């Protein structure tokens, strides 16, 4: 009946309406929940949070000080209790952890230095691994010893592709594109068709993995003992999505944070910088077939081209955002939150992408061959690590958090009720909270 790490809310009867998990009244169907703490899970969380979180004595300060926690069954208090009791399954099935933006108000206010914010971050890492397909890849990505393998693999494959570019190109009937539009290019060494198809292929894999992960995640969210029981939807799905995306773009939730650090700002920079880069990248990829570009497409763009300007601006934003993030993670651990390899891997990869990108650009403008080829190659490897490993790395938060936020809107498990906005503002202060509370459950 009991399996390791299982928390068994005994299987609900079909059709039976159930309260969301861990309502204060008792377990799902009034029957006691059988607990067998998963010690490995506890050890893993402890390693990631610095051995501290079991000190939690359930005072609830974390939930009270959280500016974005909902009124009913607020996080992270209940997650702390579950984490203390090693209730792995329940935590992995808890979409609330994705509503947390790790702003760390809770960790700063915790009287036991239990660092609930870091605990939730650690749970999210476990969740990424849990939902990933295949799971072993996510496991690799969370362990430093797999770094050579994870970087070596794309190096090998891309290197192989480059070495074999001519036979493959000939076999596929693809020749290096010629024409006046290409003024100066990498094409002889790294033809566009090769890169596009190489990355296109792996992006498909990554997309597939992301979809599988999301499907698993949404299935959990919709389960009757998770959010599925909260009654009729709050909004239509489209409207929920629209509200959530708006929240993401405005960083509306993130900016409610009061702990002394600049994470919302740095995330803002990286977020929009990355979007700018993505837009430019897609514009370029579609160059040869894009009717809007057909005539004027000159590659590479001149430095003053609006696209180039946008790309450089975006790159600079990501760069500055990354520098801020690295700085506060290194110097302001108490306020900005603890960091694990999972965090570092993602952040340094992003940083490597943007630095190698700028280096490539610089060498490119300076016409410094063959260095530029080597640097561009390195840049591509990091791009691969960033994008293709997305469903397995911390980058997966774009998938899960967005999804969780949309469904939180859909099920009305989001935002602050107008009635309690004042009391929340009291905890952390600031009028911005009241404005934020316009998102009504």
């Amino acid at each position, binding site marked *: 009946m009991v399996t390791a790490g299982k928390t068994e809310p005994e299987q609900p009867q079909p059709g039976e309406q159930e309260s969301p998990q861990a309502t204060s009244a008792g377990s799902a169907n009034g029957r*006691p929940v059988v607990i067998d703490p998963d010690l490995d899970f506890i050890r893993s969380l402890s390693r990631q949070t610095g051995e501290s979180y*079991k000190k939690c004595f359930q005072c609830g300060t974390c939930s009270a000080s959280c500016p974005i926690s909902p009124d009913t069954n607020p996080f992270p208090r209940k997650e702390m*209790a579950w984490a203390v009791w090693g209730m792995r399954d329940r935590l992995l099935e808890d979409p609330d952890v994705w509503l947390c933006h790790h702003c760390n108000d809770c960790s700063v206010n915790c009287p036991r230095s239990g660092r609930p914010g870091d605990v939730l971050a650690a749970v999210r890492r476990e969740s990424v691994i849990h939902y990933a397909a295949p799971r072993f890849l996510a496991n690799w990505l969370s362990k430093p010893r797999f770094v050579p393998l994870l970087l070596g693999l794309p190096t090998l494959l891309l290197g192989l592709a480059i070495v074999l570019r001519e036979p493959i190109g000939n076999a596929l009937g693809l020749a290096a594109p010629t024409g006046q539009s290409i003024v100066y290019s990498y094409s002889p060494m790294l033809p566009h068709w090769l890169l596009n198809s190489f990355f296109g292929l792996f992006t498909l894999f990554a997309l597939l993995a992301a979809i599988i992960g999301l499907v698993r995640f949404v299935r959990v969210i919709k389960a009757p003992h998770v959010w599925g029981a909260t009654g009729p939807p709050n909004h239509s799905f489209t409207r929920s999505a629209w509200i959530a995306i708006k929240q993401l773009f405005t960083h509306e939730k993130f900016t409610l944070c009061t702990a002394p650090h600049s994470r919302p700002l740095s995330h803002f920079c990286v977020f929009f910088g990355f979007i700018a880069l993505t837009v430019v990248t897609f514009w370029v990829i579609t160059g040869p077939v894009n009717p809007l570009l057909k005539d004027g497409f000159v590659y590479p763009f001149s430095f003053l081209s609006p696209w180039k300007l946008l790309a450089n601006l975006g790159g600079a934003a990501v760069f500055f955002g990354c520098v801020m993030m690295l700085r506060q993670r290194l110097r302001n651990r108490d306020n900005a939150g603890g960091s694990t390899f999972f965090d570092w891997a993602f952040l340094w990869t992003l940083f490597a992408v943007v630095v190698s990108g700028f280096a490539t650009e610089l060498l490119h403008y300076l016409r410094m061959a063959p260095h530029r080829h080597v640097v561009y190659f390195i840049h591509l490897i990091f791009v691969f690590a960033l994008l293709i490993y997305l469903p397995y790395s911390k980058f997966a938060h774009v998938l899960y958090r967005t999804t969780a936020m949309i469904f939180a809107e859909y099920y009305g498990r989001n935002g602050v009720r107008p009635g309690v906005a004042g009391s929340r503002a009291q905890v952390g202060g600031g009028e911005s909270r009241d404005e934020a509370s316009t998102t009504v459950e």
Partner: protein
Amino acid sequence: MRLVEDKIGVFICTGYGIADALDIDALCKVATEEHNVPFCRTVETCEGPGLDAINEDIANEGLNKVVIAGISPRRYPDYAFPEHVIAEPLALREHVVWSQPAGEEDTQMMAEDYLRMYITRVKKRQPLEPFEAEEAIDKSLLVVGGGIAGLTAAVEAARAGYDVRLVEKTDALGGWLAKQHKSIPTKPPYRDLEETGIDALIAEVDDHPKVRVYTSATTSQIVGAPGLFDVTLTSTGNGKPEGEVVDEFRIGAIIQATGWRPADPREDLPYGQLDDVIRNVELEQMVKDQGRITRPSDGKDVKSVALIQCGGCTNKDHHSYCSSICCLTSLKQALYLREQGEDSKAYVFYEFMRTPGKYENFYRRAQEDHGIFLTRGEVADVKRTGDGGLCVTARDTMLGEEIQVNVDLVVLAAGMIPNAADGEAIRALEDAQVTLVEGDSEAKKKEAAETIEQLKQHEGTEILNLGYRQGPDLPSLEYGFPDSHFICFPYESRRTGIYPTGAARQPTDGLGSRADATGAALKAIQCVEMTSRGEAVHPRAGDKSYPDFFMQRCTKCKRCTEECPFGVLNEDKEGTPLLRETRCRRCGVCMGACPERIISFKDYSVDIVGSMIKAVNVPDEFEEKPRILVIACENDAFPAFDLVGQHRLQCSPWIRVVPVRCLGSVNFVWITEAMAAGYDGVILLGCKYGDDYQCHFIKGSELASVREKNVREKLEQMAMDIERVELHQLQIDEYDKLPGIFEKFTELIDEIGMNPFKGM
């Protein structure tokens, strides 16, 4: 006794603003003319150079009794006079000048009255001669109980140079600590389990030349009094026949370190029904014996355990106080299991997790352990599961839901019950048993039978077997713990020279027992030393007076033997009180109780206080100046008047305050005398009584409240209004209530009119 002629001197301080408020010449005349005091002079101060001048006059004039009308004795930084001089300090400054308007006629009258009262008192006081017992006072100590507290007390007293006899009823020293595998932390950082260290302590006791150890022995009889206790030890079996006398000796004081026994667990849990449900003491024994935690049912190693706290806190009738160590013990036992295997799990269910003081660190350490799970919660039931394990269900947990855990072993934290007997209950039981046989009426026999039914659980519980009229053991406080003055003086018991300590006195751990036992050893040493000098112990420490019974007039009414809070008086078959002076605390409760007024101290008697009361000039009724007699306990209420003055609170000018040792020492003849003398009312100010009593003599003010009722009857006989006597309970920090009390009382007197006996 050498009779010395009284040479009385009165000193009146003019400093402190006293001369500005009062007519000093008139005051001097009260002394010299009214009371014929041969020597009266003014001094500027009564401290420093002023005190030197006073002492010079004492020497030059050969004075042996002095009244110093100046500041409160509590304010004298260097209050010192030659030993033969009886000094009466009168707090004119606090009680008159600071709390009355300056220069008023009533203020002057009050000061003069106080001077009259204090001169009267000093005249009546006799020089003290400390009590000298016929036999030599023995300074050795008896420690009853060989656990951590007893061993510590023995070692501490022996190190201080006192002979100690330690008696232990089992065959080995060490008590509960010797049965433990490890001890909870006793030193910083309070995180790690420690060796108990009991072996070293036992070795020190065994080897110490000043300690004599008796094992397998018990105190079958202790008669006598502090400094003169005669102890008989008899065997508890183990080698010698049970009951055989082991030794007889004399000792000076007793430390009762009889420890505790585990309480029965909650009845609704299957302790005793399922083999794998055990108590914490049994788990401790198991680990001590075999070094591992195994399942009693099949001997397999335990991988998970549920520790259930508060053996009965959920059931208030069962065990209604916190035993203070169970939580720590369970955390310790959880760590035992964790040491047994990396994947072992220990669950602790508690009502309140109590790890006081630095033990918080130990709690944190357990909390941080990956395999220890703590939750508040009420354990609803423990059931056997199919695979031979146990399933524990808990409600109202920190997880916000009802939870179940499957474990190999369930351990119930059993509370501590003191190994103490309620001496007074045993005595009451014996009395009832006698009445049942010899009672002279059916009603009394029926009542006795009911008493026996109520108290039957005390039958045969004697531990110390004291030869005291008020019972063979210490009286009990709440929950069966031996008496102690918890509010003010925790080490004191109501039996002089007997000091309960360790877990017998209050639930405590090893560390607490050590500290407690050291304190008890110190108290016992103080007792034998002071007793040897004929002085009283706490709270009238150093008092050399002692009560004198004028036995020719004793009517054997037994009031003194029954009411003495300290069991000082034994009685013979006829009921004649037998005084055991070294047991006495000098409170005077017997003096207040005695209807024949045959009990007195040389410096405190019915006559002395009565004369003080009568020394006041009571104006006749046409002057419309009522007089209110205030009889104030000198432990709290009387010093409160100092504070009234210090805070410049204005008091009624009609009051005249007389200090008494304890409200229990108030003999109601004073009140009828006061009424006859023309006082319009009497206010008695005593300490708080009840469960958390504050009375230094335990039940003095309670007795006074009982006697007050008798006084009221007496007043009715005199055709007086019973409202003229009031009793108030007052703590020293409630001094600000005093002016209000008097104001209200004055209004009452105005209402009911002046004392009709005035001027008769």
